Protein backbone atom coordinates (compact mmCIF):
# COMPACT_ATOMS: atom_id res chain seq x y z
CA UNK A 1 0.00 0.00 0.00
CA UNK A 2 2.77 2.41 0.98
CA UNK A 3 4.72 1.51 -2.13
CA UNK A 4 1.69 2.30 -4.32
CA UNK A 5 1.28 5.70 -2.66
CA UNK A 6 4.98 6.45 -3.01
CA UNK A 7 5.03 5.49 -6.66
CA UNK A 8 1.82 7.45 -7.34
CA UNK A 9 3.25 10.55 -5.70
CA UNK A 10 6.44 10.18 -7.65
CA UNK A 11 4.55 9.93 -10.95
CA UNK A 12 2.28 12.87 -10.19
CA UNK A 13 5.11 15.05 -8.86
CA UNK A 14 7.28 14.48 -11.88
CA UNK A 15 4.24 15.11 -14.13
CA UNK A 16 4.74 11.75 -15.82
CA UNK A 17 1.02 11.22 -15.38
CA UNK A 18 -1.83 13.63 -14.75
CA UNK A 19 -4.16 11.22 -13.00
CA UNK A 20 -3.80 8.06 -10.96
CA UNK A 21 -6.68 5.63 -11.12
CA UNK A 22 -6.74 3.51 -7.98
CA UNK A 23 -8.91 2.34 -5.12
CA UNK A 24 -9.98 4.31 -2.06
CA UNK A 25 -12.21 3.69 0.95
CA UNK A 26 -15.85 4.30 0.20
CA UNK A 27 -18.89 4.16 2.43
CA UNK A 28 -20.04 1.13 4.46
CA UNK A 29 -16.74 -0.70 4.30
CA UNK A 30 -16.71 -0.78 0.51
CA UNK A 31 -13.96 0.37 -1.78
CA UNK A 32 -14.48 2.58 -4.78
CA UNK A 33 -12.43 3.93 -7.63
CA UNK A 34 -10.30 6.98 -6.89
CA UNK A 35 -9.01 9.48 -9.40
CA UNK A 36 -6.04 11.29 -7.91
CA UNK A 37 -4.80 14.36 -9.73
CA UNK A 38 -3.20 16.13 -6.77
CA UNK A 39 0.05 14.66 -5.37
CA UNK A 40 -0.95 15.63 -1.81
CA UNK A 41 -3.98 13.37 -2.07
CA UNK A 42 -2.14 10.11 -2.70
CA UNK A 43 -2.75 8.93 0.86
CA UNK A 44 -6.32 8.19 -0.16
CA UNK A 45 -5.08 5.25 -2.23
CA UNK A 46 -5.47 1.83 -0.70
CA UNK A 47 -5.06 -1.74 -1.82
CA UNK A 48 -6.43 -4.85 -0.11
CA UNK A 49 -8.43 -7.96 -0.94
CA UNK A 50 -11.65 -5.94 -1.35
CA UNK A 51 -10.17 -4.19 -4.39
CA UNK A 52 -11.51 -6.42 -7.14
CA UNK A 53 -13.06 -3.96 -9.57
CA UNK A 54 -11.49 -3.89 -13.01
CA UNK A 55 -10.28 -0.29 -13.13
CA UNK A 56 -9.37 -0.50 -16.80
CA UNK A 57 -13.00 0.40 -17.50
CA UNK A 58 -12.08 4.03 -16.79
CA UNK A 59 -9.26 4.11 -19.32
CA UNK A 60 -11.74 4.42 -22.16
CA UNK A 61 -14.00 6.96 -20.45
CA UNK A 62 -13.80 10.39 -21.97
CA UNK A 63 -14.01 12.13 -18.57
CA UNK A 64 -10.84 10.40 -17.43
CA UNK A 65 -9.05 10.32 -20.75
CA UNK A 66 -9.18 14.08 -21.17
CA UNK A 67 -7.23 14.58 -17.92
CA UNK A 68 -4.07 13.48 -19.72
CA UNK A 69 -1.71 10.61 -19.15
CA UNK A 70 -3.14 8.01 -16.81
CA UNK A 71 -1.49 5.90 -14.16
CA UNK A 72 -3.51 2.86 -13.19
CA UNK A 73 -3.33 0.45 -10.27
CA UNK A 74 -3.57 -2.86 -12.06
CA UNK A 75 -4.00 -6.41 -10.88
CA UNK A 76 -3.39 -9.22 -13.35
CA UNK A 77 -6.86 -9.17 -14.99
CA UNK A 78 -6.56 -5.39 -15.34
CA UNK A 79 -3.18 -5.78 -17.04
CA UNK A 80 -4.72 -8.22 -19.48
CA UNK A 81 -7.52 -5.76 -20.15
CA UNK A 82 -5.01 -3.00 -20.82
CA UNK A 83 -3.35 -5.23 -23.40
CA UNK A 84 -6.71 -5.86 -25.04
CA UNK A 85 -7.59 -2.16 -25.11
CA UNK A 86 -4.25 -1.37 -26.68
CA UNK A 87 -4.59 -4.08 -29.32
CA UNK A 88 -8.08 -2.82 -30.12
CA UNK A 89 -6.66 0.69 -30.39
CA UNK A 90 -8.84 2.14 -27.66
CA UNK A 91 -5.91 3.26 -25.53
CA UNK A 92 -2.56 4.56 -26.68
CA UNK A 93 0.27 2.70 -24.95
CA UNK A 94 2.16 5.96 -24.38
CA UNK A 95 -0.80 7.32 -22.42
CA UNK A 96 -0.81 4.61 -19.77
CA UNK A 97 1.54 3.95 -16.89
CA UNK A 98 0.83 0.72 -15.07
CA UNK A 99 1.29 0.35 -11.33
CA UNK A 100 1.17 -3.42 -11.44
CA UNK A 101 0.22 -5.57 -8.49
CA UNK A 102 1.35 -9.17 -8.47
CA UNK A 103 -0.42 -12.20 -7.00
CA UNK A 104 1.24 -11.51 -3.64
CA UNK A 105 -0.19 -7.96 -3.52
CA UNK A 106 3.22 -6.34 -3.98
CA UNK A 107 3.90 -3.47 -6.35
CA UNK A 108 5.64 -4.49 -9.55
CA UNK A 109 7.97 -2.25 -11.42
CA UNK A 110 6.98 -1.81 -15.05
CA UNK A 111 9.21 0.80 -16.71
CA UNK A 112 7.19 0.24 -19.87
CA UNK A 113 4.41 -1.96 -21.13
CA UNK A 114 6.61 -4.55 -22.80
CA UNK A 115 7.85 -5.50 -19.33
CA UNK A 116 4.22 -6.00 -18.36
CA UNK A 117 3.72 -8.24 -21.38
CA UNK A 118 6.62 -10.47 -20.41
CA UNK A 119 5.42 -10.54 -16.80
CA UNK A 120 2.01 -11.80 -17.96
CA UNK A 121 3.60 -14.54 -20.05
CA UNK A 122 5.07 -15.97 -16.88
CA UNK A 123 2.25 -15.24 -14.45
CA UNK A 124 -0.01 -18.01 -13.26
CA UNK A 125 -3.52 -17.11 -14.37
CA UNK A 126 -6.55 -19.10 -13.42
CA UNK A 127 -10.20 -18.44 -12.89
CA UNK A 128 -11.47 -19.08 -9.37
CA UNK A 129 -12.25 -22.62 -8.28
CA UNK A 130 -15.90 -21.68 -7.73
CA UNK A 131 -16.34 -20.47 -11.32
CA UNK A 132 -14.48 -23.46 -12.66
CA UNK A 133 -16.76 -25.82 -10.77
CA UNK A 134 -19.90 -24.00 -11.94
CA UNK A 135 -18.72 -24.17 -15.55
CA UNK A 136 -17.89 -27.87 -15.30
CA UNK A 137 -21.30 -28.54 -13.85
CA UNK A 138 -23.00 -26.65 -16.68
CA UNK A 139 -21.07 -28.49 -19.34
CA UNK A 140 -22.23 -31.84 -18.01
CA UNK A 141 -25.91 -30.88 -18.26
CA UNK A 142 -28.14 -31.95 -21.12
CA UNK A 143 -29.35 -29.36 -23.61
CA UNK A 144 -32.75 -29.19 -21.90
CA UNK A 145 -31.18 -28.75 -18.47
CA UNK A 146 -28.90 -26.01 -19.76
CA UNK A 147 -31.82 -24.22 -21.36
CA UNK A 148 -33.84 -24.43 -18.15
CA UNK A 149 -30.87 -23.30 -16.09
CA UNK A 150 -30.17 -20.22 -18.17
CA UNK A 151 -33.74 -19.18 -18.86
CA UNK A 152 -34.48 -19.37 -15.13
CA UNK A 153 -31.22 -17.78 -14.00
CA UNK A 154 -31.65 -14.88 -16.41
CA UNK A 155 -35.35 -14.41 -15.67
CA UNK A 156 -34.66 -12.09 -12.71
CA UNK A 157 -32.44 -9.78 -14.80
CA UNK A 158 -34.05 -6.37 -15.14
CA UNK A 159 -31.60 -5.10 -17.69
CA UNK A 160 -29.82 -2.54 -15.58
CA UNK A 161 -26.85 -3.19 -17.88
CA UNK A 162 -24.42 -3.14 -14.96
CA UNK A 163 -22.65 -6.08 -16.64
CA UNK A 164 -22.14 -3.90 -19.67
CA UNK A 165 -21.05 -0.83 -17.72
CA UNK A 166 -18.58 -2.74 -15.59
CA UNK A 167 -16.94 -4.37 -18.59
CA UNK A 168 -13.89 -2.48 -19.87
CA UNK A 169 -14.25 -4.16 -23.26
CA UNK A 170 -17.89 -3.10 -23.72
CA UNK A 171 -16.88 0.35 -24.83
CA UNK A 172 -19.15 0.92 -27.85
CA UNK A 173 -20.75 4.33 -27.57
CA UNK A 174 -23.86 2.95 -29.20
CA UNK A 175 -24.62 -0.56 -28.06
CA UNK A 176 -26.61 -2.98 -30.23
CA UNK A 177 -29.36 -3.09 -27.60
CA UNK A 178 -29.97 0.60 -28.09
CA UNK A 179 -30.30 0.25 -31.84
CA UNK A 180 -33.93 -0.07 -32.82
CA UNK A 181 -33.66 -0.21 -36.57
CA UNK A 182 -33.52 -3.14 -36.63
CA UNK A 183 -34.52 -4.05 -33.11
CA UNK A 184 -31.94 -6.74 -32.52
CA UNK A 185 -33.27 -7.98 -29.23
CA UNK A 186 -36.60 -7.55 -27.47
CA UNK A 187 -36.38 -4.46 -25.26
CA UNK A 188 -38.49 -5.89 -22.46
CA UNK A 189 -36.76 -7.36 -19.44
CA UNK A 190 -38.63 -10.63 -19.77
CA UNK A 191 -37.35 -14.18 -20.16
CA UNK A 192 -36.91 -13.90 -23.89
CA UNK A 193 -35.44 -10.41 -23.90
CA UNK A 194 -32.99 -11.26 -21.15
CA UNK A 195 -31.94 -14.52 -22.73
CA UNK A 196 -31.13 -12.82 -26.00
CA UNK A 197 -29.43 -9.84 -24.42
CA UNK A 198 -27.02 -12.06 -22.54
CA UNK A 199 -26.44 -14.14 -25.64
CA UNK A 200 -25.59 -11.00 -27.61
CA UNK A 201 -23.28 -9.74 -24.89
CA UNK A 202 -21.42 -13.03 -24.66
CA UNK A 203 -21.04 -13.23 -28.41
CA UNK A 204 -19.74 -9.68 -28.68
CA UNK A 205 -17.12 -10.52 -26.06
CA UNK A 206 -16.13 -13.78 -27.68
CA UNK A 207 -12.36 -13.99 -27.96
CA UNK A 208 -12.01 -10.64 -26.19
CA UNK A 209 -13.10 -11.42 -22.62
CA UNK A 210 -10.17 -11.64 -20.24
CA UNK A 211 -12.21 -13.53 -17.60
CA UNK A 212 -11.90 -10.89 -14.90
CA UNK A 213 -15.42 -11.77 -13.72
CA UNK A 214 -16.37 -8.17 -13.09
CA UNK A 215 -19.73 -8.49 -14.88
CA UNK A 216 -20.81 -11.19 -12.45
CA UNK A 217 -19.66 -9.15 -9.47
CA UNK A 218 -21.42 -6.04 -10.76
CA UNK A 219 -24.75 -7.85 -11.14
CA UNK A 220 -27.09 -6.62 -8.38
CA UNK A 221 -29.00 -9.90 -8.57
CA UNK A 222 -25.94 -12.13 -8.53
CA UNK A 223 -26.75 -13.76 -11.85
CA UNK A 224 -23.60 -15.61 -12.92
CA UNK A 225 -23.40 -13.78 -16.25
CA UNK A 226 -19.62 -13.99 -16.17
CA UNK A 227 -19.87 -17.73 -16.79
CA UNK A 228 -21.09 -16.98 -20.30
CA UNK A 229 -18.20 -14.76 -21.30
CA UNK A 230 -15.70 -16.97 -19.50
CA UNK A 231 -16.96 -19.88 -21.52
CA UNK A 232 -16.42 -17.90 -24.70
CA UNK A 233 -12.88 -17.12 -23.58
CA UNK A 234 -12.28 -20.80 -22.95
CA UNK A 235 -13.69 -21.77 -26.32
CA UNK A 236 -11.66 -19.25 -28.29
CA UNK A 237 -8.57 -20.67 -26.61
CA UNK A 238 -9.61 -24.20 -27.44
CA UNK A 239 -10.73 -23.53 -31.02
CA UNK A 240 -8.25 -20.91 -32.17
CA UNK A 241 -5.53 -20.88 -29.52
CA UNK A 242 -6.29 -17.24 -28.77
CA UNK A 243 -5.91 -16.44 -25.09
CA UNK A 244 -6.90 -12.81 -24.87
CA UNK A 245 -4.90 -10.13 -23.16
CA UNK A 246 -1.39 -11.55 -23.23
CA UNK A 247 0.07 -9.19 -25.74
CA UNK A 248 -0.53 -5.71 -27.07
CA UNK A 249 -1.06 -7.18 -30.52
CA UNK A 250 -3.83 -9.69 -30.07
CA UNK A 251 -5.40 -11.38 -33.05
CA UNK A 252 -9.11 -10.66 -33.16
CA UNK A 253 -10.96 -13.95 -33.21
CA UNK A 254 -13.99 -12.99 -35.25
CA UNK A 255 -12.39 -10.67 -37.77
CA UNK A 256 -9.68 -13.12 -38.74
CA UNK A 257 -9.76 -16.58 -40.17
CA UNK A 258 -7.49 -19.45 -41.00
CA UNK A 259 -7.91 -21.69 -44.01
CA UNK A 260 -7.69 -24.76 -41.80
CA UNK A 261 -10.42 -23.78 -39.32
CA UNK A 262 -12.28 -27.01 -38.64
CA UNK A 263 -15.63 -27.28 -40.37
CA UNK A 264 -16.85 -30.74 -39.46
CA UNK A 265 -20.24 -29.31 -38.46
CA UNK A 266 -20.86 -27.98 -41.97
CA UNK A 267 -22.56 -30.28 -44.46
Amino acid at each position, binding site marked *: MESIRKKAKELLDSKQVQVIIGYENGTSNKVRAAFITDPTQVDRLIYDERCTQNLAVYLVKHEVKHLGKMGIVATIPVMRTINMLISEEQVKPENVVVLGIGEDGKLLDFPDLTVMESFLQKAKIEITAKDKEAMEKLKKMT*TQEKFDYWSNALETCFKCYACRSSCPLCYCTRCAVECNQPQWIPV*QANKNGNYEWHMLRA*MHLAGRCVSCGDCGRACPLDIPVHL*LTMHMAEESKR*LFGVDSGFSMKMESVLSNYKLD*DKDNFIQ
Partner: protein
Amino acid sequence: MSEFEPKIVAFVCNWCTYAGADLTGTSRIKYAANVKIIRFPCTGRIDFMLLMKAFQNGADGIIVSGCHPNDCHYSSGNFHAKRRWMVFRELLDYMGVDIERITFSWVSAAEGARWAEIVNTTTDKLRKLGPYTNYQNLVKSGIEEEL
Protein backbone atom coordinates in the same frame (compact mmCIF):
# COMPACT_ATOMS: atom_id res chain seq x y z
CA MET B 1 -53.94 -36.28 -37.09
CA SER B 2 -51.87 -34.56 -39.69
CA GLU B 3 -48.14 -34.82 -39.42
CA PHE B 4 -46.22 -31.93 -37.91
CA GLU B 5 -44.76 -29.72 -40.61
CA PRO B 6 -41.71 -27.77 -39.43
CA LYS B 7 -41.12 -24.18 -40.41
CA ILE B 8 -37.60 -23.76 -41.71
CA VAL B 9 -35.85 -20.51 -42.45
CA ALA B 10 -32.89 -20.67 -44.79
CA PHE B 11 -30.31 -17.91 -44.76
CA VAL B 12 -28.44 -18.24 -48.02
CA CYS B 13 -25.87 -16.27 -49.93
CA ASN B 14 -26.75 -14.60 -53.20
CA TRP B 15 -23.90 -16.02 -55.24
CA CYS B 16 -23.88 -19.72 -54.54
CA THR B 17 -26.73 -21.23 -52.60
CA TYR B 18 -29.42 -18.88 -53.87
CA ALA B 19 -28.37 -19.59 -57.42
CA GLY B 20 -28.14 -23.27 -56.49
CA ALA B 21 -31.70 -23.20 -55.20
CA ASP B 22 -32.71 -21.51 -58.43
CA LEU B 23 -31.15 -24.37 -60.33
CA THR B 24 -33.13 -26.84 -58.23
CA GLY B 25 -36.25 -25.13 -59.50
CA THR B 26 -35.24 -24.88 -63.12
CA SER B 27 -34.14 -28.53 -63.02
CA ARG B 28 -37.68 -29.38 -61.85
CA ILE B 29 -36.41 -31.14 -58.74
CA LYS B 30 -39.08 -31.37 -56.07
CA TYR B 31 -38.22 -30.68 -52.48
CA ALA B 32 -39.95 -30.01 -49.19
CA ALA B 33 -41.98 -26.80 -49.20
CA ASN B 34 -41.20 -26.12 -45.54
CA VAL B 35 -38.31 -23.86 -46.27
CA LYS B 36 -38.48 -20.08 -46.57
CA ILE B 37 -35.41 -18.73 -48.26
CA ILE B 38 -33.91 -15.40 -47.31
CA ARG B 39 -31.26 -14.08 -49.65
CA PHE B 40 -28.17 -12.35 -48.31
CA PRO B 41 -25.30 -10.74 -50.17
CA CYS B 42 -22.88 -13.12 -48.48
CA THR B 43 -22.80 -15.57 -45.55
CA GLY B 44 -20.41 -13.13 -43.93
CA ARG B 45 -23.34 -10.72 -43.73
CA ILE B 46 -25.52 -13.01 -41.63
CA ASP B 47 -25.54 -11.64 -38.10
CA PHE B 48 -25.85 -14.30 -35.44
CA MET B 49 -28.82 -12.52 -33.92
CA LEU B 50 -30.77 -13.05 -37.15
CA LEU B 51 -30.80 -16.75 -36.34
CA MET B 52 -32.29 -15.96 -32.97
CA LYS B 53 -34.83 -13.70 -34.67
CA ALA B 54 -35.95 -16.64 -36.76
CA PHE B 55 -36.48 -18.76 -33.66
CA GLN B 56 -38.18 -15.83 -31.98
CA ASN B 57 -40.67 -15.61 -34.83
CA GLY B 58 -41.58 -19.26 -34.68
CA ALA B 59 -39.06 -21.11 -36.83
CA ASP B 60 -38.50 -24.73 -35.86
CA GLY B 61 -35.26 -25.03 -37.73
CA ILE B 62 -32.70 -23.01 -39.62
CA ILE B 63 -30.47 -23.65 -42.59
CA VAL B 64 -27.45 -21.44 -43.16
CA SER B 65 -25.77 -21.98 -46.47
CA GLY B 66 -23.18 -20.29 -48.62
CA CYS B 67 -20.36 -20.83 -51.05
CA HIS B 68 -17.83 -23.60 -50.60
CA PRO B 69 -14.53 -22.52 -49.04
CA ASN B 70 -12.34 -20.69 -51.56
CA ASP B 71 -15.42 -20.09 -53.72
CA CYS B 72 -16.72 -16.97 -52.05
CA HIS B 73 -17.65 -14.12 -54.37
CA TYR B 74 -15.96 -11.76 -51.92
CA SER B 75 -13.10 -14.23 -51.41
CA SER B 76 -13.22 -14.42 -47.61
CA GLY B 77 -16.82 -13.86 -46.49
CA ASN B 78 -17.55 -17.52 -45.92
CA PHE B 79 -14.36 -18.02 -43.92
CA HIS B 80 -15.40 -15.25 -41.59
CA ALA B 81 -18.87 -16.77 -41.38
CA LYS B 82 -17.38 -20.16 -40.55
CA ARG B 83 -15.52 -18.73 -37.57
CA ARG B 84 -18.62 -16.94 -36.41
CA TRP B 85 -20.64 -20.15 -36.53
CA MET B 86 -17.92 -22.09 -34.76
CA VAL B 87 -18.03 -19.66 -31.86
CA PHE B 88 -21.78 -19.13 -31.93
CA ARG B 89 -22.53 -22.85 -31.92
CA GLU B 90 -20.51 -23.24 -28.75
CA LEU B 91 -22.44 -20.41 -27.11
CA LEU B 92 -25.80 -21.80 -28.22
CA ASP B 93 -24.87 -25.21 -26.90
CA TYR B 94 -23.74 -23.71 -23.60
CA MET B 95 -26.98 -21.77 -23.24
CA GLY B 96 -29.08 -24.80 -24.07
CA VAL B 97 -30.33 -23.95 -27.55
CA ASP B 98 -30.82 -27.10 -29.58
CA ILE B 99 -28.03 -26.88 -32.16
CA GLU B 100 -29.44 -29.93 -33.94
CA ARG B 101 -32.01 -27.54 -35.34
CA ILE B 102 -29.47 -25.44 -37.19
CA THR B 103 -27.98 -26.89 -40.35
CA PHE B 104 -24.87 -25.34 -41.81
CA SER B 105 -23.94 -26.24 -45.34
CA TRP B 106 -22.02 -25.17 -48.40
CA VAL B 107 -24.00 -25.40 -51.62
CA SER B 108 -22.59 -24.07 -54.86
CA ALA B 109 -24.56 -22.62 -57.77
CA ALA B 110 -24.15 -25.92 -59.65
CA GLU B 111 -25.48 -28.11 -56.86
CA GLY B 112 -29.22 -27.90 -57.37
CA ALA B 113 -29.76 -31.52 -56.41
CA ARG B 114 -27.66 -31.12 -53.30
CA TRP B 115 -29.80 -28.20 -52.14
CA ALA B 116 -32.93 -30.32 -52.49
CA GLU B 117 -31.25 -33.08 -50.53
CA ILE B 118 -30.19 -30.74 -47.72
CA VAL B 119 -33.66 -29.27 -47.41
CA ASN B 120 -35.25 -32.72 -47.43
CA THR B 121 -32.94 -34.22 -44.81
CA THR B 122 -33.31 -31.16 -42.59
CA THR B 123 -37.08 -31.32 -42.90
CA ASP B 124 -37.07 -35.02 -42.02
CA LYS B 125 -34.87 -34.40 -39.03
CA LEU B 126 -37.09 -31.59 -37.79
CA ARG B 127 -40.25 -33.63 -38.28
CA LYS B 128 -38.76 -36.11 -35.83
CA LEU B 129 -37.61 -33.41 -33.42
CA GLY B 130 -41.01 -31.75 -33.40
CA PRO B 131 -41.84 -28.10 -32.91
CA TYR B 132 -39.30 -26.01 -31.03
CA THR B 133 -41.62 -25.52 -28.06
CA ASN B 134 -38.77 -24.59 -25.72
CA TYR B 135 -38.00 -21.38 -27.51
CA GLN B 136 -41.59 -20.64 -28.45
CA ASN B 137 -42.57 -20.90 -24.78
CA LEU B 138 -39.73 -18.56 -23.87
CA VAL B 139 -41.07 -16.00 -26.33
CA LYS B 140 -44.65 -16.56 -25.20
CA SER B 141 -43.80 -16.13 -21.52
CA GLY B 142 -42.52 -12.67 -22.37
CA ILE B 143 -45.66 -11.66 -24.22
CA GLU B 144 -47.96 -12.93 -21.49
CA GLU B 145 -46.06 -10.95 -18.90
CA GLU B 146 -46.65 -7.81 -20.91
CA LEU B 147 -50.40 -8.30 -21.19
